[in-house]
């Protein structure tokens, strides 16, 4: 058997560790909306963000929505979570991974027309890694291997 004084010490440690864990977890969940990195297009459509405030929006670049200006770096596209869409305008260099069907996070403001004026666009990578051959084979088989991290799947 463990000696009583040791059992008591172990008990105190477990009690303190448990109490602190609960306290930290409760705090984190209370702050959840602030810890989230971005709002989804649905949250923006629901009016959770005040017009004019700086925030980040995360979604997929909608297929066929990217329009690149010929003479400048200006680009416009639509970001979607497959429930709501938000149009984005941006002028600057896009990350290498930026393309249609890609997850992105953009930082900027909503203008009065409901267009998100982005000052920064980041590409999000999903949790799927595959070789170009595998990806081509999946596409041929009619499977969309792209990430569905922003809500519903496009097929829905």
């Amino acid at each position, binding site marked *: 058997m463990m000696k009583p004084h040791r059992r008591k010490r172990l008990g105190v440690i477990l009690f303190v560790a448990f109490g602190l864990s609960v306290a930290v977890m409760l705090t984190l969940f209370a702050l959840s909306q602030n810890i989230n990195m971005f709002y*989804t297009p649905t949250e923006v459509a629901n009016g959770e963000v005040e017009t004019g405030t700086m925030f980040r929006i*995360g979604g997929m670049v909608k297929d066929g929505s990217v329009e690149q200006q010929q003479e400048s770096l200006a680009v416009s596209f639509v970001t979607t979570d497959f429930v709501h869409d938000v149009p984005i305008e941006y002028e600057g260099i896009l990350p290498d991974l930026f393309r249609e069907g890609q997850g992105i996070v953009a930082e900027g403001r909503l203008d009065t027309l409901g267009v998100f004026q982005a000052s920064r666009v980041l590409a999000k990578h999903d949790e799927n890694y595959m*070789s170009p051959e595998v990806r081509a*084979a999946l596409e041929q088989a009619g499977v969309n291997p792209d990430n569905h991290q922003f809500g519903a799947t496009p097929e829905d």
Partner: protein
Amino acid sequence: MSGRWQWFHRLGSPKWFYEKTTRWLPWLVGAMALFLAVGIVWALLFLPPDYQQGHTSRILVVHVAVAGTSLSFFPLMAVAGTVTLVWRIKLADMVAKNAAPLGAWFTFLTLATGSIWGSVSWGTWWEWTDSRLVSMLFQLFLLLGVISLRTAIENAETAARACALLSIVGCINVVIIKYSVDWWNTLHQPSSPISMEVGSPNGPEFWVATAVMIVAVYLFLAVSLILTTRNEILQREDKAQWVRELVAQAR
């Protein structure tokens, strides 16, 4: 002392640890070298490029292995710390003391490799609003805190107990790091579900190299921790008969 706990106290004997590890070390170092060589060659030469990232994905073999391993330091130090607090076994504290700087290096490497990968893939080196990134940085600060706490408190026993407590509390952050990508939305991708099927997303052609590297990095951790702990034993036990004999032999 009752018989049932005797093995536990023998395990905590510095002399026993020193003698056992003298025999284990060559095997551990050999296995580490083997796994490291296979992992690095595989990652650099045989890993297929990713359809989006191209060759950048090779960094992830190292990043995932180092990141996963860096999460084991606080649990390790917490177990050692609990043994220190409850049973007052000296060896546990020697392990904990040497784990902290190692953990800081592993955490730093995780942040550095991740940053390099992110600068290419995401288009940014660092995002203060990403909870995975920030909680990992917090782990680095916590580990630096544990290291400075030990030097700040003069009494060795008090320092050991304070560090033990901080290590136990620090485990909460490990849970936060692990689940940050699931609980909140982040730029950092969630962990990948591995697939057993060759030719499918996250198939063996991608994760086997990482698995080999994870074993290699854990072996590296074990070897480094054993080596530094052995030094610690020689320093702290320099009055012991067996250490004196060992030093006399070496001369």
